[in-house]
């Protein structure tokens, strides 16, 4: 790996729930020892079911949540040790696009105000006229029109709002954008437009994406590498091709086999791995491998010890006792 823009090592985020008066607080292990790197200019897809902790990983990177443990090194600086004041400079370089385009824009501000606010606060663009020009440029860049600056968010469609969200992220000229399910609230036709826009912007501006999603086909389309999360841990991390074509981890295989194939004859003939039971609660995750109670291949050692994330093939990592390194 050449130059890691973001390096997350052993990230842990636990939430205490209930009982601050006397009663014993329970702990939700939302993220439990996640490590990965993102190289400048690449897109890392982070997939997993609802509640597996993928959004929390994103929020920890953005320092919207303070991690319980682990290190997040962004562009050479360890964010976990930074004071609020020093964070401000880093935050400019790290932006976010949210899932819900309806609640991610302040309903009381016009699009122009939303886009020019960061320019003003961080003194990126001095002068009102220059800011207006930059807002126009940002709007055009995401495929909107200059006149949209005077509109309020409720006067735009979902797809247009999401474009505004992207423009807001671009306003500060960040190097990393955390895309937290940026298309899952949109219609399929709009999804494609937004994905193409994100790819186009990446090519033009040299952006790096952490693309969080649960839609495997969207992730496959946009990502260079993909990490699969389950119950707060990374199960498998590999190049897109390797992960989709030769998945090693039983969980990844089950996940991929749930994606329908748009061809009835192939669909009827293929093997489907159906998992038993439900995802265990992160309040009380299983001992050993968190996946073992549902794993079709589980053995005794799976319940006894936690499998580490090992490099099975060059660049292909998996956390499973049952896959052995080849070569």
């Amino acid at each position: 790996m050449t130059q890691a823009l973001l390096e997350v090592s052993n990230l842990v985020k636990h939430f205490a729930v209930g009982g601050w008066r006397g009663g014993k607080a329970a702990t939700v292990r939302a993220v439990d020892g996640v490590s990965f790197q993102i190289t400048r200019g690449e897109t890392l897809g982070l997939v997993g079911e609802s509640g597996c902790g993928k959004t929390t990983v994103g929020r920890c990177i953005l320092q919207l949540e303070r991690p319980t443990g682990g290190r997040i090194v962004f562009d050479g600086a360890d964010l976990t040790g930074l004071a609020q004041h020093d964070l401000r400079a880093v935050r400019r370089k790290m932006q976010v696009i949210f899932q819900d385009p309806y609640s991610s824009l302040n309903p009381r501000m016009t699009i122009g105000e939303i886009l020019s606010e960061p320019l003003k606060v961080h003194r990126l663009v001095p002068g009102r006229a220059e800011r207006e020009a930059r807002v126009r440029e940002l709007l055009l860049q995401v495929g909107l029109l200059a006149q949209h600056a005077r509109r309020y968010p409720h006067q735009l469609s979902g797809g247009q709002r999401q474009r505004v969200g992207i423009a807001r992220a671009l306003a500060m000229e960040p190097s990393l954008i955390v895309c937290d399910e940026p298309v899952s609230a949109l219609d399929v036709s709009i999804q494609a437009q937004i994905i193409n826009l994100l790819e186009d912007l990446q090519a033009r501006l040299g952006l790096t994406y952490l693309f969080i999603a649960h839609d495997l086909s969207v992730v496959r389309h946009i990502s260079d590498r993909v990490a699969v999360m389950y119950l707060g841990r990374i199960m498998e991390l590999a190049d897109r091709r390797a992960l989709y074509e030769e998945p090693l981890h039983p969980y990844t295989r089950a996940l991929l086999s749930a994606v329908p194939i748009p061809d009835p004859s192939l669909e009827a003939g293929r093997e489907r791995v159906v998992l038993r039971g439900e995802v265990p609660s992160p309040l009380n995750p299983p001992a050993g491998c968190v996946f073992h109670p549902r794993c079709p291949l589980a053995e005794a050692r799976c319940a006894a010890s936690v499998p580490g994330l090992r490099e099975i093939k060059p660049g292909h990592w998996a956390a499973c006792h049952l896959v052995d390194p080849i070569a």
Partner: protein
Amino acid sequence: MPPSSPLNETAAPPDRKSAGTVFATLVDFARRRPLGAVGGAIIVVMVMLAASANLIAPYDPLATDYAAMLAAPSEAHWLGTDAFGRDMLSRMIHGSRTALMVGLGASLLGASLGSLIGVASAYFGGRVDLLVQRVMDVFFAFPVIILALAVVSIIGTGVGNVVLAIATPMVPRCARVVRASALSVREMPYVDAARAAGFGHPRIILRHMLPNVMAPVLIMATAFLGEAILLEASLSFLGLGVTEPTAAWGLMLRGAAVEFAETAPWMAIFPGLAISLAVFGFNLLGDSLRDALDPRLRTQ
């Protein structure tokens, strides 16, 4: 999400409406909530009286006429005169100024301070929130009038101090309501976006959160206006509010009005009616506004 979702409702169109649609909205409001319209009409009349007090009051409210002390209502003095021969009607018209000034001032002050505290409390959360809310609880423990009396007895009487005294009990009430709405706004992605953009706390609180919790604040402020007017009258009646010779309804009810209640009842009846009417008007409007703006009741 369908376009008619409740999220869109909160994003009430703040764009400028033409005069025609404002009028249509008013007519619609009056048709749906006739009581609210009555309340609104009372307030409009009161505001007009207060604004043009100098023009329409037949006499100077402070001018004494010792030839006509305790005069019964007549052609010269429509509502009679008081123990100093001051014209009751003029004093009542000028008294509406005091009532509105104190009412609006106290509501505005209490609502702004309260909503600021409420939003900040919700935004910072954790220990700050806990501490602020316990302090608010202490204020809550006192009945409104007792708290206002305590403040006046510390800082003294007079219009400005009365405004402060009446605003004080409103602060914790407003803070609590606003905190509740602010807690949900705190979790909105646009607040996260503002934090991720590295904006400072004051900017996030004032620009991103406060404007989105204003609806309950406006309703509370309107509802509190009536209470503030009543409180001002009570304080003045107890001699701890507005001081003589300022024309104020509560003040007109005390002293000679009590002494001569049987021989010159107009001295007590008319200011009392004015207070009741004003409080009634504000309460009607406040309740109707609350109902009209409550999305759960809007389908009616």
